[in-house]
């Protein structure tokens, strides 16, 4: 009998977008092929779907393991599967040219995986897979031998801080709620991951949904809740499906329901779909939304831990916070607090994206420097362009410039340079990105998403956006810069909730570190990064133009003229600077300056 063969296909959203469903189907077909069926049966070949392991840029990723030997393939398409099966599975010869390279291992080497440890290894739709990696052993331990006070003390000692952005100590928050003698309490999993450029929570749920359920069980036990809600974005259909599957499996096996594992502890979970409002990530807005109302925040106190859902004590924890709980219970608080910095313990899952070579989902020990993240894990800037800034914390965060590249990433570190951890999105920007445009992009976002309840946020973000728009269109005045700064600070200081308080961060940080770019837009009427079309002039380069006519066809105002196979030109009196010619040209002949 030959050694056992396992084939893992990455089936997260990234993998599926790259064609993982087709790859999976192709494997199924090929393995059932009559000609090789005997060989496959003899080798105990198993086909497995797994969640995201992080390196989505290389999807579809496929692992083929023969016994202990694992080979990982990248960029696999369904058409390549036949050869993989024939050569690797049947003949035992890995297909060298499709294997991942050095950089795949570099991407993983410096990471420290706690939350993501089992992603990419287990089938997210199988509770047996989760049980096989010691899943639900933490809740077993909690129910068998720990009091609610023990659990809270453990989480406090571990120093786990909320991973959704606030960074409040999870154990302390639980303590407030546990102290209440209300007969009804709730625990809510906040999976309303609305930051653009963030996909940590989605990937965790898609890759290991049971870990989130187990975290909720531990939290519910600690605070004395019998009902839990998962508030998740409707834009994440796959994650919702996998959660539903996980919940029904957990119920079947007695991890949800009455008298869990023979104890007196009852717990049920309901999924609530968000309806598309960024502000619902804020705790009190989220509560309003679960209750069926407009998701508008209210003033705090009272805090939800005292008066939350339907006026009852409610704990709201982020997906990643919950996914940290089982490892903390299993390995002890000392183990957890040995990872990280003085004030920020454990690891952080980060969505590393933007203009870098290796984009994807990573998990780092707190305190790793930006440089290590961007260059060692991320492989440096795409196309060898120059690094300009890294944007962290989504619309609530700021842009960190080159001079802080050695900054250690933890809650306080990021705050000290005018940004924040947020939920952990990191977007790397290079020399071709205009910082005024980036600030405008985020203000556009927060203006749209402002719920309108408080004046500073509702009107302030609109006025800030108007000023930024003026500057990017060459209508800015130097006084605007002081006005921007002043209004930004006012909005920050006087808004009702976190959305408004942090909305000006992208402006404040770019004004601080990239003031020269604002000035170039205003004084020279130039966009140094050549992004703001209104400040650019389009030319056609004679030496590169082949006269194909594509730009002429693309121009919406007939500003391009020229005969076929002869150099074309742009009439600047007609040009509306839309950039259509630039996009249409296949020969790089259109120049913008």
């Amino acid at each position, binding site marked *: 009998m030959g050694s056992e063969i396992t084939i893992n296909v990455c089936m997260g*959203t*990234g993998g*599926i*977008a*790259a064609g993982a469903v087709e790859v999976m189907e192709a494997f199924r077909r090929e393995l059932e092929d009559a000609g090789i069926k005997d060989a496959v049966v003899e080798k105990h070949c198993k086909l497995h779907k797994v969640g995201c392991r992080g390196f*989505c*840029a290389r*999807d579809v990723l496929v692992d083929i393991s023969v016994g202990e030997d694992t080979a990982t393939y990248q960029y696999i398409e369904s058409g390549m599967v036949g050869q993989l099966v024939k050569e690797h599975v049947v003949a035992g010869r890995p297909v060298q040219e499709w294997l991942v390279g050095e950089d795949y291992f570099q991407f993983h080497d410096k990471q420290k995986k706690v939350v993501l440890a089992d992603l990419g290894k287990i089938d997210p739709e199988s509770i047996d897979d989760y049980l096989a990696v010691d899943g639900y052993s933490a809740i077993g331990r909690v129910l068998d031998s720990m009091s609610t006070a023990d659990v809270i003390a453990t989480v406090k000692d571990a120093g786990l801080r909320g991973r959704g952005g606030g960074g409040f100590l999870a154990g302390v928050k639980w303590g407030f709620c546990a102290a209440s003698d209300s007969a009804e309490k709730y625990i809510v999993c906040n999976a309303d*991951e*609305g*930051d*653009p*450029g*963030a*996909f940590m929570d*989605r*990937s965790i749920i898609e890759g290991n949904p049971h870990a989130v359920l187990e975290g909720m069980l531990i939290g519910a036990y600690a605070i004395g809740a019998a009902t839990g809600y998962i508030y998740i974005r*409707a*834009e*994440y259909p796959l994650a919702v499906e996998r959660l539903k599957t996980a919940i029904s499996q957990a119920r079947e096996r007695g991890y949800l329901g009455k008298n869990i594992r023979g104890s007196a502890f009852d717990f049920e979970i309901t999924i*609530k*779909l*968000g*309806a*598309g*409002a*960024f502000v619902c990530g804020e705790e009190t807005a989220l509560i309003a*939304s679960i*209750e*069926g*109302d*407009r*998701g*508008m925040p209210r003033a705090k106190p009272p805090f939800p831990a005292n008066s939350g859902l339907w006026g009852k004590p409610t704990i709201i924890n982020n997906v990643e916070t919950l996914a940290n709980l089982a490892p903390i219970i299993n390995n002890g608080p000392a183990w957890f607090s040995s990872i990280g910095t003085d004030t920020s313990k454990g690891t952080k899952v980060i*969505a590393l*994206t*933007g*203009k870098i070579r290796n*984009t*994807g989902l990573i998990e780092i020990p707190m305190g790793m420097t930006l440089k290590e993240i961007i260059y060692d894990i991320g492989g440096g800037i795409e196309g060898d362009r120059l690094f300009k800034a890294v*944007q962290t914390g*989504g619309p609530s965060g700021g842009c960190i410039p080159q001079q802080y590249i050695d900054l250690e990433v933890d809650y306080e570190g990021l705050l000290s340079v005018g940004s924040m951890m947020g939920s952990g*999105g990191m*977007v790397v*920007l290079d020399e071709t*990105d205009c910082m005024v445009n*980036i600030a405008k*992009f*985020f203000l556009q*976002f927060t203006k749209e*998403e402002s*719920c309108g309840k408080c004046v500073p946020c509702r009107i302030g973000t609109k006025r800030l956006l108007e000023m930024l728009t003026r500057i990017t269109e060459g209508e800015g005045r130097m006084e605007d810069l002081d006005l921007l700064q002043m209004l930004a600070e006012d909005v920050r200081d006087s808004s009702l909730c976190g959305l408004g308080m942090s909305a000006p961060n992208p402006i404040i940080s770019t004004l601080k570190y990239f003031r020269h770019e604002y000035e170039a837009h205003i004084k020279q009427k130039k966009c140094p990064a050549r992004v703001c079309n209104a400040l650019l002039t389009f030319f056609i380069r004679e030496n590169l133009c082949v006269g194909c006519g594509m730009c002429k066809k693309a121009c*919406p105002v007939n500003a391009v003229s020229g005969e076929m196979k002869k150099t074309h030109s742009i009439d600047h009196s007609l040009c509306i600077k*839309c*950039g*259509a010619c630039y*996009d*249409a040209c296949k020969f790089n002949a259109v120049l913008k300056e």
Partner: protein
Amino acid sequence: MEKEEQQKLENIYDTSVAGGDNIIAVLQQVQKVFGYVPEEAVDWFSRRMNISASKFYGVITFYSQFHLNPRGKNIITVCSGTVCHVKGAPRITEKLAGDLKLKGGSGTTKDMLFTLENVNCVGACSIAPVVIVNDKVFGKQSPGSMAKNIKSYKE
């Protein structure tokens, strides 16, 4: 209202409201069945649940998921997350809006074949810029490639 429509509303009421669902969940059901939230449905539920219609409209207009007008047969969603933005999503939107003759970068075509819209972030940043047509995700797109992809939906 047609009898058939009435029956649909009745069904939603039976499965949703009777199960204790709130306004948001009811509206999500209505939209699933009709493709949008028709005014008649709001009136019907308002009377049936004894909740004022303004409360429904308050919720509908608050959340970007709800639509008060019929939508196209094919829904094109351009992701406008940070990464898609810096990798050129706005130019894709412009190109598609131009091709479909939609002003303002979003809306539904006259022949009801396409609805073009933006979404904050679909969390597929590794393959940015991303465009979703119905359920199919297109990654690493350019204005040109996306214009081509749309053609197959035109029949």
